[in-house]
C-alpha cells in the first residue's frame, strides 16, 4: 500500500504545484474553462429537464420514454468511458515518458499496474462523470425522489466508472499482448475509431427519431411493447437503470439490493482480475512497446506522386514543408485514422438532408427548401470548424519538439504560416463545397441560393482556415504526446468558439438581404433604393468580416509565435 501511495504522489503533487504556482494569468484559463463548463452544464440541465417534463405530459408512455432515455444515457456514458479508458490506458500504462523510470524501481508489477490503472481511471472518467451530473440532476429535479436516489447515484456512478475503466484497461492489455509491439498503438486506435464510426453510422441509419414519432409505428400497442423490451440484462447500465428508476418511481420492487450487489461485485471482481492478469502480461507488453519501430511503408509510390503534384507550384522551402507534412500525416495512423471519423461525420450530415421530411411541414415548400439551404451554410461552416480544430488548428503544434529545425532555418515564420494556410485551404474548400452542393441538391434549392451559399462558403473557408492556423500558432503545444490532445485543449476550444461566432455573424449579415431578395422574387415586388443600400452594406459587411477573419488571426498567430522565442 505504501508503494502504491508513493507511486501516485507525483501525480497529485504535480497537480497541487500547478494550482499553487498559478498566478494572475495562470488562473485565467482554468477560470474561463470552469465558467464555460458551468454554462454548458446549466444548458444541459435545462434541456434535459424540459425533455423530461415533456415526457411526463405524454400519457401512457411518458415514463417509459423517460426510463428508456435514462438507459440510453448510461449506455452512452458507459461506451464513452470504455473508449476514453482505452486511449488513456495506452499512455499511462505503456507510452508515458516516466514509465521507464517507474519500471526500474524496486516495486512489484502489480503495485505499479494498480497505481497506473488508478491514474487511468481518474484521468479518463472525471469529465464524463461531471457531464452526467446535469442530466441525472434533471431527473432528480423533475421526479423529486428521496435522498436514496442521490446516495445510490453517487456510489453507482463510481462503480460504473470502475467497471468501464476495468474493461478498457483489460482490453488494452490484451491487445498490446496480442499485436506486435510496433503496431500496438496504431491497431488500438484504429480499432477504437472503427468501432466508434461503426456504432455512429449504425445508430444514425437506425433513425432513432422514429422512436419519438409514434405515427410511424404500426400501432400504439406495438410502440409501447417495443419500448418495454428490456436492454441486455447482462449490462451494468441495465442494473444501474433499474436501481435508479426504482428510486425515481419511489417503488420498492425488491430487486434493487441484488442489482447493487451485482454492480459492485462486478466492479471489484474486475479490479482483482485485472491486477491478476497484469501480473502475467503487463510487463511483457510494456517491454514490447519499447522495441524499435520499423515499418513497411505501403503505398509509397502513390504518396510520392501526390506529393509531386501538390508541391509543384511552390518554391523549394514550401515544397519540402508540404511534402514533410503529407508524409507525416499519412504515416501517423493517429492522424489519418481521424479521416474515418470525418468521413462518417460528412456522410451522416449529408444523409440527414436526404431524409428530411420536408413535405410534412406546414410551411411553403420552396420557402422551407431555400431557408434550409441558407441555414445549411452555417451548419456546413460548423462542420468545417470541427474538421479544422482536428487538422488545421493542430498544424503548428504538429511540428512537435522538432520545431527548432524551422526556427533555426532561414525560412521566415510568416512564410511558414501562410504555407500552412495554403496547404489546408484546398482540401477544406473541396470539403466545404461538397457539403454545400450535395445538400443543396437534395434540398432542390434555387440557382440563386446555390450560387450564394457556394460563394459564401468559398470565402468563409479561407477565414476558418486562417482562424485555425492563427489560433494554432497562438496556443501551440509542441510537447504533446499525442496530437489529439492539442485539439481538445484551451486553444482548440477558443478556436471553436471564435469560429462559431464568425460563421454565425456571416449568416446573420446575409440573412436580411437574402430574405428581401427571396420575398421580392416570390411576390414579384420590386426592391426599393433603401433596400438596395441595406443589401449592399450587408454584403460589404460580410466581405469586411471575412477579410478580417483571414488576415487578423494570421498576424496575431505570427506575433505570438515570434513571442515564444523570448522564452519563459
Amino acid at each position, binding site marked *: 500500500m505504501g508503494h502504491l501511495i508513493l507511486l501516485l504522489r507525483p501525480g497529485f503533487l504535480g497537480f497541487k504545484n500547478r494550482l499553487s504556482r498559478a498566478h494572475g494569468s495562470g488562473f485565467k484559463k482554468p477560470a474561463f474553462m470552469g465558467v464555460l463548463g458551468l454554462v454548458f452544464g446549466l444548458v444541459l440541465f435545462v434541456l434535459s429537464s424540459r425533455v423530461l417534463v415533456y415526457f411526463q405530459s405524454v400519457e401512457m408512455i411518458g415514463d417509459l420514454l423517460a426510463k428508456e432515455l435514462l438507459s440510453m444515457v448510461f449506455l452512452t456514458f458507459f461506451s464513452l468511458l470504455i473508449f476514453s479508458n482505452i486511449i488513456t490506458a495506452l499512455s499511462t500504462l505503456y507510452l508515458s515518458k516516466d514509465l521507464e523510470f517507474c519500471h526500474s524501481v524496486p516495486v512489484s508489477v502489480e503495485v505499479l499496474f494498480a497505481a497506473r490503472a488508478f491514474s487511468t481511471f481518474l484521468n479518463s472518467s472525471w469529465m464524463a462523470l461531471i457531464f452526467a451530473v446535469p442530466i441525472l440532476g434533471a431527473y432528480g429535479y423533475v421526479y423529486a425522489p428521496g435522498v436514496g436516489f442521490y446516495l445510490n447515484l453517487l456510489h453507482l456512478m463510481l462503480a460504473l466508472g470502475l467497471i468501464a475503466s476495468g474493461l478498457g484497461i483489460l482490453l488494452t492489455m490484451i491487445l498490446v499482448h496480442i499485436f506486435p509491439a510496433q503496431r500496438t498503438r496504431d491497431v488500438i486506435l484504429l480499432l477504437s475509431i472503427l468501432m466508434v464510426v461503426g456504432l455512429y453510422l449504425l445508430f444514425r441509419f437506425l433513425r432513432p427519431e422514429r422512436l419519438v414519432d409514434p405515427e410511424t409505428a404500426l400501432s400504439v400497442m406495438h410502440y409501447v411493447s417495443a419500448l418495454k423490451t428490456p436492454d441486455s440484462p447482462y449490462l451494468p447500465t441495465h442494473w444501474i437503470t433499474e436501481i435508479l428508476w426504482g428510486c425515481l418511481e419511489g417503488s420498492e420492487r425488491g430487486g434493487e439490493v441484488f442489482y447493487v450487489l451485482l454492480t459492485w461485485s462486478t466492479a471489484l471482481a474486475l479490479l482483482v482480475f485485472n491486477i491478476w492478469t497484469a501480473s502475467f502480461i503487463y510487463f511483457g507488453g510494456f517491454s514490447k512497446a519499447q522495441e524499435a519501430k520499423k515499418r513497411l511503408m505501403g503505398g509509397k509510390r502513390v504518396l510520392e506522386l501526390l506529393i509531386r503534384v501538390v508541391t509543384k507550384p511552390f518554391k523549394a*522551402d514550401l515544397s519540402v514543408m508540404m511534402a514533410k507534412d503529407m508524409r507525416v500525416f499519412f504515416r501517423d495512423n493517429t492522424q489519418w485514422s481521424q479521416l474515418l471519423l470525418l468521413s462518417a461525420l460528412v456522410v451522416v450530415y449529408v444523409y440527414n438532408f436526404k431524409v428530411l421530411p420536408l413535405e410534412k411541414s406546414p410551411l411553403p415548400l420552396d420557402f422551407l427548401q431555400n431557408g434550409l439551404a441558407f441555414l445549411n451554410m452555417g451548419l456546413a461552416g460548423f462542420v468545417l470548424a470541427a474538421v479544422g480544430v482536428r487538422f488545421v488548428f493542430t498544424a503548428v503544434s504538429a511540428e512537435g519538439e522538432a520545431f*527548432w529545425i524551422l526556427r533555426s532555418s532561414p525560412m521566415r515564420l510568416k512564410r511558414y504560416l501562410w504555407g500552412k494556410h495554403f496547404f489546408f485551404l484546398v482540401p477544406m474548400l473541396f470539403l466545404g463545397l461538397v457539403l454545400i452542393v450535395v445538400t443543396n441538391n437534395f434540398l432542390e434549392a434555387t440557382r440563386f441560393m446555390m450560387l450564394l451559399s457556394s460563394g459564401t462558403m468559398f470565402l468563409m473557408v479561407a477565414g476558418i482556415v486562417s482562424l485555425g492556423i492563427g489560433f494554432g500558432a497562438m496556443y501551440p503545444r509542441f510537447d504533446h504526446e499525442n496530437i489529439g490532445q492539442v485539439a481538445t485543449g484551451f486553444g482548440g476550444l477558443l478556436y471553436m468558439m471564435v469560429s462559431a461566432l464568425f460563421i454565425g455573424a456571416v449568416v446573420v449579415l446575409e440573412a436580411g438581404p437574402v430574405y428581401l431578395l427571396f420575398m421580392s422574387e416570390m411576390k414579384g415586388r420590386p426592391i426599393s433604393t433603401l433596400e438596395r443600400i441595406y443589401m449592399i452594406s450587408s454584403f460589404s459587411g460580410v466581405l469586411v468580416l471575412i477579410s478580417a477573419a483571414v488576415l487578423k488571426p494570421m498576424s496575431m498567430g505570427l506575433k505570438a509565435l515570434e513571442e515564444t522565442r523570448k522564452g519563459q
Partner: protein
Amino acid sequence: MIELINLSKRYKSLRAVDGINLEIKQGARFGFLGPNGAGKTTTIKMMAGVLMPTDGRIIINGHDLAKDPVAAKQCVGFIPDRPFLYEKLTGLEFLHFIAGLYGLNNNGKLNHRINDLLDLFGLGRWGEELIEGYSHGMKQRLVMCGALVHRPKVLIVDEPMVGLDPRGARLVKNIFKEQVENGVTLFMSTHSLDVAQEICDEIAIIQGGRLIAQGTGESLRRKAGVDGNLEEAFLRLTEEKEDLHGSPDSSVAPRLSGV
C-alpha cells in the same frame, strides 16, 4: 566570423546570460565551457535564432541576426544537444527537407551530397528507414548531416558527443577538424574538457551567465595558476564563483559519505 555584443537573456528575475561579449574569427575552433546552468545552451539557442535575446546583438558573417535573420541563418549549421526530429520521415527525406529549407534545389548534385553525408556519418544503409527506428546516437549523427548539408560557414554545436559511442565521437571530432580546415568557424559548447582540449584552439568559460575567462588552454591554465590539465584549471576558475553562490563544490564527497 561571430560577434556577440553585450548579449543578455533574462527569465523574469533570473539573468541566464548577462552581457556577454565575444569575437570569434573565421576558421576558429571555439570551445564554450561552463558548469550546469551556466548559460551555455541559452547562449547557443540565441545564436541559432531559436531564442530571442533580451539585450545585445549577434553578428554572424557580417549579418545581424535580429535585422537580417534569413541571411544570418543561411550561414549557420546548428546542432542542438537533444536531437528532436520528425520521427515519421526517413533519414533521406529528412535531409531533403532540411536542404529545401535552406533553398537548395532537389537535383542530382544534392542527392549526391546527401548520400555522401549519410555515408560519412555511417548512416548509409539507414537512409530509407524511418527516424523513429534510429538510436539516440544515430539521430544525433543525422542532425549533424542536416547541419552540414547546405555547406554552412559557421557551425554552432551544443554538446556534440552526448549519446555517441567512442567510434562515433572520434568520427565527429575528425569531421569538425576537417570542416575548420576548410574555413568553417566552429562554436561548440561541451562538458567534456578532453574534447575541448583536443578540438578547440580557444576556450571561453561562462558561469552565472557571465564570461569569467577566455583564451587558449595554456593561457587558462596560467590564469588559474595550475600546472595540470584543463580540468584542474576549469575547477579552479569556477571554484570561487561556486563558493560565492553557496553551490556544492569538490568538497561535497566527504560530506556525502555518511549518507
